[in-house]
């Protein structure tokens, strides 16, 4: 419970924002940042904790978005139920891609490649399949009732996505303190050594991927309800795959708050870019790509890493240890 305290405090503080301001600009910005934080947290579980870098998380985001939208529009299913099914569908896609990839022993670059390929395949299919509206995309009819998961003002949306982010933070924290989490991190550090200690690395990776996909899919479902329009490029496009990994990397890969910190930075950068240069497409992603390279080069543990180093330097002096067993002596 102690470990959950920082999360609850942060969520409580953030929850007060709509009570302080009713500026749509601010709320919209924060909703998008929280959305990316959610999507990024999904990536963070598989990539940050598990060490498996996916370049195709759009596959789960888009599936969540499309399933939610299609169930409502074509089958008249209630929006909330649609969101639940969307999350499950995303998790299923994650399980399938994971099963195929991990059973084949794909790792590292090959795994990144195959996830990229799967996301692209889904994008192409979505851009031609009639059920998704093909090139035209899918529009969710405006129906401003809470039962339809649509709200007049932004505040309810804000609170919902905040709750989702909060849940994902709690989930990650609980995983951190569990055997599954220890096994997942061991897989990241050294798969052979992990196997020799009894870890079923394939199943651990598969479980991580499925949960990761579910979290990211939740972001997709929310997106569909918030913007009421998706097409193949939005749902399955590279932009979301990039932002999904950028946020955790900037904020601190493999940490609970990393994706949230990183998402705030990413979105702030995006807004600044728009302020300076207008809405020309592409520039924001140029900045994102540049930042990615800079972070990897100079601050690989992200903002959280920098903060942790500062804290360590300020707080813990060295304690005496047998010289022969520790580096730097003897």
């Amino acid at each position, binding site marked *: 419970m102690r470990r959950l305290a920082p999360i609850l405090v942060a969520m409580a503080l953030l929850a007060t924002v709509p009570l302080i301001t009713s500026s749509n600009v601010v709320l919209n910005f924060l909703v998008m940042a929280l959305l990316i934080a959610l999507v990024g947290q999904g990536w963070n579980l598989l990539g940050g904790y598990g060490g498996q870098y996916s370049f195709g998380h759009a596959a789960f985001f888009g599936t969540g978005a499309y399933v939610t939208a299609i169930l409502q529009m074509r089958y008249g299913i209630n929006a909330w139920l649609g969101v639940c099914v969307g999350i499950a569908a995303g998790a299923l896609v994650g399980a399938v891609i994971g099963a195929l990839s991990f059973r084949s*022993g*794909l790792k590292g670059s090959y795994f990144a490649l195959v996830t990229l*390929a799967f996301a692209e395949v889904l994008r*192409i299919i979505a851009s*031609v399949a009639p059920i998704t509206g093909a090139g035209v995309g899918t529009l969710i009819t405006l129906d401003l009732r809470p039962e339809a998961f649509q709200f007049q003002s932004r505040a309810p949306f804000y609170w919902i996505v905040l709750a989702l982010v909060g849940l994902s933070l709690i989930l990650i924290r609980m995983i951190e303190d569990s055997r599954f989490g220890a096994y997942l991190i061991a897989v990241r550090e050294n798969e052979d050594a992990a196997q020799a200690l009894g870890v079923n690395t394939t199943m651990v990776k598969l479980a991580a991927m499925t949960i990761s996909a579910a979290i990211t899919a939740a972001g997709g479902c929310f997106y569909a309800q918030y913007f009421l329009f998706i097409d193949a490029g939005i749902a399955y496009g590279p932009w979301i795959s990039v932002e999904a990994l950028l946020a955790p990397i900037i904020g601190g890969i493999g940490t609970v708050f990393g994706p949230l910190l990183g998402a705030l930075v990413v979105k702030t950068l995006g807004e600044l870019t728009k302020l300076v240069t207008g809405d020309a497409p*592409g520039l924001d992603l*140029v900045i994102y*790509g540049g930042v990615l*390279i800079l972070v990897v080069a100079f601050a690989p543990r992200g903002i959280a890493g920098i903060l942790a180093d500062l804290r360590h330097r300020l707080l813990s002096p060295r304690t005496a240890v047998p010289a022969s067993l520790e580096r730097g002596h003897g």
Partner: protein
Amino acid sequence: MLSSAILVPAVLNGLMTGAVYALIALGLTLIYGVLHIINFAHGALLTAAMFAAFFAHKLFGLDPYIATIFLTPLFFLVGYGLQRFVIGPAAHGEDRNILLVTLGLAVVIENALLYAFRADTRTINLPYAFDIVEIGTAFLALPRVIAFIVVLAVALVLWLIMRWTDTGKAIRAVAKEKLGAELSGIDVAHIYAVTFGLGTACLAIAACLLIPTYYVNPHAGNAFVLVAFTVVVLGGMGSVAGALIGGLFVGVVESLSGLYLGESLGQIGIFAMFILVLLFRPSGLFGERV
């Protein structure tokens, strides 16, 4: 449908397209074989090269085949610089970081092109672009025949470089045994950069070969590179022969399936082949075991 009058030109066209795929794949497999990294920026670099070829013609009136003479060394230097001063240092030698850095480069280059030149599709008009070469019953576009010949020449030149020059031998040494090469005094960072530069030089040549008959826009490179990736995993990561044979093979398959299945299904077909090969035989037909 199976008449030779239709099949033969389809196969020949497939071979010519395949030759360009092979050249792009060659760059990719060279980089993998020596640096052991999958260059996620390959597509963006090809797009950049295509834009360069386009503007060489638009601004300086340079025929693409002439432009090759300037663009090839230019892109060699670009590739050299990227590996030596960006990818190498930023990655600190860790595989996971190299992955992210090449992805970052891809995003930067592709979107810079998008920002600078918008998403419009451009083409250049060359007087000889529609000239025909007759081979038996087949009428083949001249630029594509030239492309085929040039690719073979490039492959030969690369082979000669690898076999007979000191740099080529150093490259092969580093590919086989990096530590040993380093201990023998080979400057590995330099060799890595040279290899990357050779890979991007291949892209420059491929771009000049493509521009007479293809359009260019910020996403153009990706379509070709996807095929190149498929070729490389099919032929084997790090195998030059695999890249060449694989490229020709994929070109023919694409041509024949385009004949029978149509365009967009063809794209999915390539993806499907790519995924299947990755899942079931990632070492490809000729490559090192994954």
